[in-house]
């Protein structure tokens, strides 16, 4: 054993032979990972200052610390309000819920995308491959058409998202050969079906009120997110995230091949069910509060793989963090760029597509 350790120290590991300049500087995955871990809190803090109403940084720190610090006995340490009511309102009621939502949505979509890419052994898979986005989109469109309230729109989106994936899964079980391929094809079928239903809903919707509402919902936005929405999705989100993180080493083996995973004693069918269930819960949760946001779940896992390699024990937590940062930046841009907010789905694609092209051009994603 000592011999192999010595060998390691002699020759630096050549994990990423086609490293670029940035990667050279960040060649040690541990350093990269540490940087990524630090990035999120910084971005969250900076995002609190973005918007038309200026807030004092000291006030913000005190505002954020107050709920925690004031749990202590008053004579030990206490923060007294030095901020204005407007500042507290802007931070806690407007900016913070939105930031939390962006973090959850970005982290969730990226992690679901990474998990799916492993499960389907295909780096071009995104979280809506099994039709969850089209299903959820139809759920929301239907709810808007029927004039249901905000809460019911979200429940309907979530429910139809889950329904679409269930139909995909059951459809694929009807055929016994090459399960992964059939699963993807079933996803395409179900996705197309629900997309058609969305079009139908739009077609019959009132063109002055409901049609724009449906269209805007489908483009995705975090502008109207409230704490209630976040509280509703957090349980699903946390449960699914924890499960995916716990089984993440085994996703590696699934990514190598189904047969080999089974020969290594892994119940691949059960694993696939767990991954699909978790990813679907996460994606449906994200879609129901933010609308349909593409590209995040496709681009971020590639960025993660480029930075820390394909090993899911490192990749999945990194995707979670990178996704959160990416979504936060996109949402900040949506808030900053114009007075009227640009829908998120548009921004993720406008930024994501060229960025993805750039990643491919660097030929450093490993599978080219």
């Amino acid at each position, binding site marked *: 054993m000592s011999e192999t350790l010595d060998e390691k120290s002699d020759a630096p590991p050549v994990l990423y032979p086609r490293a670029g300049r940035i990667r050279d500087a960040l060649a040690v995955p541990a350093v990269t990972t540490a940087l990524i871990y630090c990035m999120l809190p910084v971005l969250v803090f900076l995002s609190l200052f973005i918007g038309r109403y200026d807030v004092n940084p000291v006030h913000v720190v005190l505002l954020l610390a107050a709920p925690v610090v004031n749990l202590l006995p008053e004579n030990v340490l206490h923060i007294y309000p030095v901020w204005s009511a407007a500042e507290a309102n802007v931070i806690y009621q407007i900016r913070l819920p939105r930031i939390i939502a962006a973090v959850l949505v970005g982290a969730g979509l990226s992690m679901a995308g990474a998990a799916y890419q492993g499960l389907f052994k295909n780096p071009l898979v995104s979280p809506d491959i099994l039709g969850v986005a089209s299903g959820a989109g139809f759920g929301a469109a239907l709810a808007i058409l029927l004039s249901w309230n905000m809460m019911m729109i979200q429940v309907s989106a979530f429910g139809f998202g889950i329904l679409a994936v269930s139909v995909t899964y059951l459809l694929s079980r009807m055929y016994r050969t090459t399960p992964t391929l059939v699963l993807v094809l079933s996803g395409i079928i179900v996705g197309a079906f629900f997309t058609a239903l969305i079009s139908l809903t739009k077609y019959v919707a009132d063109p002055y009120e409901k049609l724009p509402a449906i269209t805007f919902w489908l483009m995705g936005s975090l502008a109207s997110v409230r704490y209630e929405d976040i509280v509703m999705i957090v349980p699903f989100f946390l449960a699914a995230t924890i499960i995916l993180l716990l089984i993440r080493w*085994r996703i590696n083996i699934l990514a190598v*091949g189904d047969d080999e995973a*089974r*020969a290594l004693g892994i119940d691949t069918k059960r694993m696939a069910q767990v991954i699909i269930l978790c990813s679907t819960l996460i994606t449906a949760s994200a879609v129901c509060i933010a609308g349909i946001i593409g590209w995040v779940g496709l681009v971020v896992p590639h960025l993660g793989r480029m930075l820390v390699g394909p090993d899911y024990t490192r990749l999945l937590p990194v995707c979670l963090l990178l996704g959160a940062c990416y979504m936060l930046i996109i949402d900040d841009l949506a808030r900053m760029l114009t007075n009227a907010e640009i829908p998120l789905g548009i921004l993720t694609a406008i930024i994501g597509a060229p960025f993805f092209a750039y990643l491919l051009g660097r030929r450093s994603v490993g599978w080219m």
Partner: protein
Amino acid sequence: MDVILDVRKAGFHYDPVRTIFSEISFSLAEEEVLCILGPNGIGKSTLIRCLANLNPLCSGAIRLHGSNIRSLPHRDVAKVIGYVPQAHDIVFPFPVRDFVLMGRAPHLGLFASPGRDDRAKADAAIDLVGIQKIADKPVNAISGGEYQLAMIARALVQEPEVLLLDEPTSHLDFGNQIRVLEIIDRLATEGLSVIMSSHFPDHAFLTSNNVAIMQHGSFMAYGLAEEVVTEENLKETYGVDVSIAYSHTVDRHVCVPHRAGQCRCHGHHVPACTGKAAVIAASMR
């Protein structure tokens, strides 16, 4: 010696109309090397997949230490049987070290990641098959021979009693073929049982105790290499003329195919060239 794997009247078909194989019976003892020969598409890979518990048999039974393999959890089977499939493309660039480490899966809990001991075992397996130099390269950027060795290392990390290898020497150059066979031979002398399929009858002489020739959906012949790999059997299996000769230089039987066309050596290097393999074999002595 103890019987590890016992196969009784095994039969398999994907489609009831077309049987892949049937009525195959044999058993594998400790430290035994069984080589399965047979023409393309005869079902060697399918048989090996059945033995690895990847395909369920349609009739008969495979017993692993006395219990039916279908009644055992995949995990328990994976602790006894290591399966080395034919090479296939891997999309993600896992470093060879991580790839080999995946063999620890049957010994780890559902939520566990490999620890220091597991990494040490992976490194030991990498040393054993001699791929230390490429241990940090991406597994989809190494040569076919190195990949084959990496897969063998991964199977060894499972700490199995039986190694199933599906054509471990196909797609390899001459040197790598021999290297892989040498490693298989060494593993067998260290106590591992091996079942491998091969396209080269010569390989049966190189490593195996027992040889089975698969033909017409069953074992046409099964027994010691010298008894099974005969000129008649090979002619019947592959439809080509072959001579089996004993070479004193290498101290074993060799399998020499007959010349297909006219002699093109013009008598320069081989005296008395008559185009008969028997003469070539004679010249080896």
